[in-house]
């Protein structure tokens, strides 16, 4: 005799309890499973921002794709930026499944981006004026991304976890691609080394900002619920320390500096003590007031609008052939 209640007969509280018990057991949630609205909304926010950041993130590097200095580098950076677009595609598909029950589509995500309702990562609002920036983005920005994304590999939402496994595997190649550009410059002429130093200096505050403001013991309700939902497992500051521990020794080893004269590693605390970037500036940047925000959004919006006739044509053709 089956005494188990149908899931639909449960009260909202009981559903929530069952949901939390499920993720606590380490089980994963699929797109068609019941989930609390709050969980869905947190995922939509996180994954659409991640997806759109991959797409906007292609733009600073895109600036260097046609200019890459050798045939091998041209091939490598084309493939690299193509991967980023591919990651954007994978993630938007995950987001599309999450927003479908709300009656929304990819078009809504794009329009949210253009209207400034959907934010993208701070680093992609910044300038990339030299070839060294193409290297530093691959080496350090992708390096930072691997750290935050690795945290979410075991996320409770299975479709996101699957996308991240593929993305992280490719990001490791990207970090190697970036490192290879950086090492070539580091071992190169005085002019090349100077180009690289200027780039590291330029990107330093953005890299610190990448992980978000430090909690200083006060974890935001967003972070707390994302941890409860097992969407993420580490705090901003914990992630930033992993990054600093991994990359600062490498930067110093190559004979380069960061624009922080008092930075040091505290052995007792087992962490880097660094000067805080301007967190007010960070807020402005992610609001779309960074040095290249308007330019890149304009580029994306303009190309989207100017190719609307193509998407219309595909829809029309699809309707005709059924």
């Amino acid at each position, binding site marked *: 005799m089956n005494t188990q209640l149908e899931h639909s007969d449960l009260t909202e509280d009981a559903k929530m309890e069952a949901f939390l018990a499920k993720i606590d057991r380490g089980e994963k949630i699929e797109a068609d499973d019941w989930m609390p609205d709050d969980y869905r909304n947190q995922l939509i926010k996180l994954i659409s921002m991640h997806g759109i950041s991959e*797409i906007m993130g*292609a*733009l600073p590097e*895109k*600036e*260097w*794709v*046609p*200019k*890459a*200095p*050798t*045939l*091998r*580098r*041209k*091939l490598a950076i*084309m*493939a690299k*930026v*193509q991967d980023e*677009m*591919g990651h*954007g*595609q994978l993630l*938007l598909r995950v987001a599309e499944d999450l927003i479908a029950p709300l009656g929304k589509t990819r078009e809504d995500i794009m329009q949210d981006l253009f209207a400034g309702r959907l934010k993208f990562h701070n680093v992609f609002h910044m300038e990339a004026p030299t*070839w060294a920036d193409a290297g530093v983005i691959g080496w350090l920005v992708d390096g930072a991304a691997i750290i935050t994304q690795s945290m979410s590999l075991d996320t409770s939402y299975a479709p996101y976890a699957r996308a991240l496994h593929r993305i992280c595997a490719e990001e490791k190649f990207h970090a190697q691609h970036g490192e290879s550009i950086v090492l*070539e410059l580091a*071992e*190169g*002429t005085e*002019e*090349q080394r100077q180009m690289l130093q200027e780039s590291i200096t330029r990107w330093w505050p953005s890299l610190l900002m990448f992980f978000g403001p430090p909690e200083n013991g006060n974890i935001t309700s967003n972070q707390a619920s994302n941890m409860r939902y097992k969407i993420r497992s580490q705090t901003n500051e914990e992630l930033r320390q992993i990054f600093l521990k991994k990359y600062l020794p490498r930067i110093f080893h190559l004979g380069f500096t960061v624009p922080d004269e008092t930075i040091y590693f505290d052995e007792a605390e087992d962490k880097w003590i660094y000067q805080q970037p301007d967190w007010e500036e960070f807020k402005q940047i992610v609001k779309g007031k960074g040095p290249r925000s308007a330019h890149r959004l304009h*580029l*994306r919006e*303009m*190309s989207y609008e*100017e*190719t609307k*006739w*193509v*998407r*219309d*044509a*595909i829809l*029309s*053709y699809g309707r*005709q052939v059924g």
Partner: protein
Amino acid sequence: MGELLQVETAQEALKNQEYTQALVDLLFQLADDDFILAYRGSEWLGLAPHIEEDVAFSSMAQDMMGHAVMYYEMLEELGVGKADDLAQLREASAFRNAILVERQNGAGGYNDDPHYDWAYAIVRSYVYGLHKKVRLESLLKSSYSPLTLISRKMLTEHRYHLMHWQVWLKQLANSTPDARARLEAAIAKVWSDAGELSDLGPNAASITGFGLIEAEATLREVWLKETQAIFEAANLSWPGEPGAAKERGRAGEHTADLIQALATLSEVYRIDPAASW
């Protein structure tokens, strides 16, 4: 000499100065065509009509760039110069690409207000691609064995590109009146340059005489016949005999578009060509 000659290696080719010259002339045409069109493809990155196409279009530009690299490396093997230098340090007048591939994607820079024309991108890629297929198939019978070898490899990838363009052509031709009109305008524009594709340059007689590739008229006939069948299948009217630009790219005459493209693509390398990048 001529038809019976089969050359297996670069060292063997170098024993005959005239043969080497004809081979070098042909390789520059092949390399520069793919290189410049792949560059134009790379400018599209991030701007395609949808994300899936952005990924696909970039993948095809990479294949084309990869083909250009193979040709430049063959030139390097023949002692013409370092592949990177050949691609990035020659003046426009030394380039042997057809004018069709150097035309800009549309008004504006790839990074500043690019008003790019997707219909032109599709038609140019497809018309060029159809010609490239005929050229590669002819190269399977080339007297220079290394060319037959890489042509076989390239054809495998290239067939997938053609399938992709065919789907686009069919969709745009049979969708909205707006798309149809844009497609027809793009065909007219591509067609006014396309005739130069099968031009083998000032040294054509020697190139075909040594059996490196079939005669211009043969390439042209096969290419036009196949293209006509594809246009008909897509319900497009046949534009007739293709024209050619007033500049002859195969003879080193080029437009301002190529000069701008070369300045961009070599900007970093030219900072210090002796440095390692």
